[in-house]
């Protein structure tokens, strides 16, 4: 039995890799790849007549395998299926860090899962509130309701868009410049930031198109995503590289935070650093850069 520490609602989640919970060969050593989170899948990767087997396999994997610092999230089946309630029971009993709600369309969907999660926590003697939630938005309705979904529960740590289903609904397909999902990604990001939760982009499914993949990851970072869902270990490193702050950004952030502390102690609200105007509005961004740099192993200060 491997007891997992209490999950952190806000932690580094640059990479979240999908794994079929029904395949022992995959889940037994998923932690070696170094992604921030693994997503054990009970939903689409598992055939309809193997849902039961996947749960037994998942339960023992959660109880037996030491995933270390890798966060363990489970994607459960949709609320329109006969499977989701038992999925939640096994996630909670096994001690998964979080549950990903598939095809989430409303705050009510989140509340339904939250109620079942709490009931399972009571049933299995797990601390109430331990199990985190995130939602996958896969439809136009989910995107339109993004804010109410993001703010529906204190357990919610983030939202992700699911490109395959969403593009199908919108009658489009992946475009090199991302225009097909630009508005949806933007709307979801705004909702997530307004609600104070994290935001993750969809998977990139063409493993042979590494240039297209890199372009998408760069756009993700530019748009302000916290991380990305992945389908293959070979996609991990690039996200970690692109999402890491540059040396210049780290130095700049350090300078801004230091200068701000000195200046505000002296009663000054607005000042310049290297010729750029700085006021309190820049501080959260600079602090975030330093925290990310520390998490990436690039910075060892104690300013934040």
């Amino acid at each position, binding site marked *: 039995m491997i007891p997992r520490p209490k999950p952190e609602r806000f932690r580094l989640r640059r990479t979240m890799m999908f794994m079929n919970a029904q395949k022992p*060969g995959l889940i*037994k050593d998923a932690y070696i790849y170094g992604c921030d989170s693994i997503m054990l899948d009970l939903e689409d990767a598992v055939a309809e007549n193997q849902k039961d*087997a996947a749960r*037994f*396999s998942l*339960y023992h994997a959660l109880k*037996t395998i030491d995933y270390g610092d890798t966060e363990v999230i489970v994607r459960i089946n949709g609320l329109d299926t006969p499977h989701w309630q*038992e999925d939640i*029971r*096994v996630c909670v009993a096994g001690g998964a860090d979080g549950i990903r709600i598939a095809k989430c369309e409303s705050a009510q969907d989140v509340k339904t899962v939250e109620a079942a999660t709490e009931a399972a926590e009571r049933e299995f003697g797990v601390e109430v509130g331990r199990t985190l939630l995130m939602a996958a938005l896969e439809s136009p309705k989910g995107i339109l309701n993004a804010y109410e979904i993001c703010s529906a529960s204190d357990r919610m740590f983030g939202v992700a868009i699911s490109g395959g289903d969403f593009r199908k609904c919108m009658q489009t397909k992946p475009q090199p410049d991302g225009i097909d999902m630009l508005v949806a990604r933007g709307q979801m990001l705004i909702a997530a930031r307004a609600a104070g939760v994290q935001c993750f982009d969809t998977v990139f499914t063409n493993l042979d198109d590494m240039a297209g993949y890199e372009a998408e990851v760069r756009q993700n970072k530019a748009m302000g995503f916290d991380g990305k869902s992945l389908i293959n270990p070979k996609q991990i490193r690039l996200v970690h590289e692109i999402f890491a702050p540059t040396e210049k950004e780290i130095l700049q952030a350090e300078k801004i935070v230091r200068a701000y502390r000195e200046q505000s102690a002296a009663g000054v609200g607005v000042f310049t650093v290297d010729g750029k105007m700085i006021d309190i509005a820049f501080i959260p961004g600079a602090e975030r850069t330093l925290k990310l740099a520390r998490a990436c192993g690039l910075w060892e200060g104690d300013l934040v």
Partner: protein
Amino acid sequence: MIISKPAIAGTVESSDALVSVEPGDGKIELTLTSSVMNQYGRQIRETVLETLERLDVKSVKINVVDKGALDCTLKARVECAVFRSCDASEKDIPWGGVIK
């Protein structure tokens, strides 16, 4: 649990095991083939028998085709096959009870 009808669980993929159960004659009859029989045959047998004992299965013909499954996978496959044979694999599984 009473094995009332044949059921199977698992696959013959690497790191997995295919487990089939059918009603027995009042005892446990285990047939095992494994790709790692020489190194782990005894341990696999023990895991399967322990799992059956935990599930209180006393009469069964059980066939295990092991492809190098970890203990946790073997347990999962045996449990799933037994629960399927009782039509009880889909919901209200006693996680942390007899499943542990």
